[in-house]
């Protein structure tokens, strides 16, 4: 069901890295433009509920997605539009879920970033942070139980989620079971409005890995090539049987928590620090410098992505919305046990 892109991994020689960088950049670009479309639709009052952007996290997210294989497991978080596309989520799923289309994977029952296709390895997040990690563990555990080897599970969190009990329990569980888990922490400096100084007291979030018996990786989350190298290595290490890998990517959220949030609390000095650089612009500069693309090519990719997004949004806006009178109103699979239907 999910589309996949074949990429060499782990990233090694310069040629392969260049090819992967182009692939990843295009996912970043499509995700950025898709996010901007959602933001515009939100401002126009066309989207119910919140809109959550990945601005500033696309390099990290795309690197996760392209480092995984089709048979792997991916539990993205709210700023992972790029990773979702790279893992193979159709853009149509994203647009349908934001609009609550009856034809989308969540059928209007859940919205925005709460979408996925569990049986294709793409898990739909619940809002409780850290809760998806042990679910990924469960899939990895089950694959091993069934004699299937070679699966990697990736779960995305922000630095705020490292304060939860779920994070602790799940990382410990993965280490005890020696599961091929890659836990990616996007340290974007703020959990909603709470700065890191009020979130954790360790010198570096990678320190946490030691206590669990996990391997730590740290990366500049604004640098696409670095993210590709680090994620490629972490995924390869997990796949090779080296147990859970904790990847901490340092970056800055270049937007509010959601589009309802003007993010006035983000300190100007952070915005002007290296953390505040726009990973998409850096990736474009890198492609130009490395002669992997020229300005004309970048413009073509951009216009292609914009047309794709406009076409999909136009399609979904014509699609049926959920009908409350046709809704089953049943939360269980065992229909014969449904009290509502009996009444």
């Amino acid at each position, binding site marked *: 069901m999910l589309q996949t892109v074949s990429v060499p991994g782990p990233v090694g020689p310069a040629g392969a890295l260049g090819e992967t960088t182009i692939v990843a950049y295009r996912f970043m670009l499509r995700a950025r433009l898709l996010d901007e479309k959602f933001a515009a639709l939100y401002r126009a009052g066309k989207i119910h509920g919140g809109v959550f952007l990945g601005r500033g996290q696309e390099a990290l997210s795309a690197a996760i997605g392209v480092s995984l294989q089709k048979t792997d497991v991916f539990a993205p978080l709210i700023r992972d539009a790029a990773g979702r596309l790279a893992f193979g989520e159709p853009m149509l799923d994203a647009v349908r879920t934001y609009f609550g289309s009856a034809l989308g*994977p969540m059928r209007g*029952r859940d919205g925005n970033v*709460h979408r996925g296709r*569990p049986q294709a390895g793409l898990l739909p997040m619940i809002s409780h942070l850290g809760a998806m990690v042990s*679910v990924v563990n*469960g899939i990895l555990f089950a694959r091993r*139980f069934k004699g299937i080897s070679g699966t990697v599970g990736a779960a995305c969190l922000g630095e705020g989620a490292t304060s939860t009990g779920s994070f602790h329990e799940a990382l410990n569980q993965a280490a005890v079971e020696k599961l091929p888990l890659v836990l990616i922490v996007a340290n974007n400096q703020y959990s909603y409005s709470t700065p890191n100084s009020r979130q954790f007291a360790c010198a570096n979030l990678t320190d946490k890995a030691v206590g669990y018996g996990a391997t730590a990786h740290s990366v500049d989350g604004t640098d696409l090539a670095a993210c590709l190298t680090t994620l490629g290595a972490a995924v390869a290490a997990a796949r090779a049987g080296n147990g859970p890998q904790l990847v901490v990517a340092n970056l800055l959220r270049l937007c509010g928590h959601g589009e309802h949030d003007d993010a006035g609390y983000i300190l100007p000095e952070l915005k002007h620090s290296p953390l505040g650089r726009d990973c998409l612009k850096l990736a474009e500069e890198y492609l130009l410098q490395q002669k992997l693309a020229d300005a004309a090519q970048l413009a073509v990719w951009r216009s292609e992505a914009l047309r794709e997004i406009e076409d999909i949004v136009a399609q979904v806006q014509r699609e049926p919305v959920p009908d409350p009178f046709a809704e089953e109103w049943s*939360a*269980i699979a065992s229909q014969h046990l*449904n009290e509502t239907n009996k009444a």
Partner: protein
Amino acid sequence: MNNITYLEAIREAQAHALREDPRVFIYGQDVGSFGGAFKATKNLAKEYPGRVFDAPISEDAMIGLAVGAAIEGLRPVIEMQFADFSTVGFNQIVNQAATLFWRTQVSCPITVRLPFGGTSGSGPFHSQCLEAIYAHYPGLVVLTPATVEDAYAMLLAAVALDDPVIFCEHKLLYYHLKAESLPREALPIGKARIAREGRDLTVVTYSAMVHEALAAAEELATEGWQIEVVDLRSIKPLDTDTVMASVARTGRLLCVGEAWPWGGVTAEIIARVASEGYGLLDAPPQRLNAKDTPVPYHPNLWAAHRPTARSVAAAARNILRH
């Protein structure tokens, strides 16, 4: 013979499930070679190698792992060492497991075994009855077997069900309740059972309180009253039809629960009977629950905290006098 206990029935049901269904595995604290805190998984790790796993003390992650395994098509049975500790995994039960099917159309066949209910000296954190709070959430099936036969048959049914099941097994019944043999057939999930027939008053209850109600009925029989006892077996779904039919026969209703009173199972039954069967009632429906405090430690306090045959009989007399 009278030689199979409620606890052994639970062990046997798990052995049967492991034997018959390769998708089943057991995960919980101390369930492996130790055989569980209550020995409900005694020897299963040895008899079914690679199928019974000790878990770290991580109730949240235990349920999360079960949900992931269920997505992969397995049928995990999770033992919470005590029902009380399931509150640590509450989020994963009510927000992850219970919403999965509704959100994604992917079913979540996990069985969460909760050794629950009061026993003398167990105190506030090893005695709780949590069936009502789980029943409150859409997406869960909540079972409360009162007999050895039901403990066996309903646990097998729970594992076979395509939904998350909260299986409330009463610790007080573990060793004392015995049967001659395991059942070959059973009522389906969602059907209540008439545990004792009567014409004067209906006591609706479940789990260990069925036995208090039956003892109360015996006592009241010596006074000439015929008490009907309905064993709900399943809290969710709730067999309103059987309750209503019984109230239609007796005209009087007493609901008994070991759980706390506020917003609980007894309140739900009275709400249903009052709204759907008001004309059937000859007296105001009443309920009897534990007191609205944490469960006390000392036997004197504990015995007064929970309903007993004596307090059930007293409550029934009040209704019968009406």
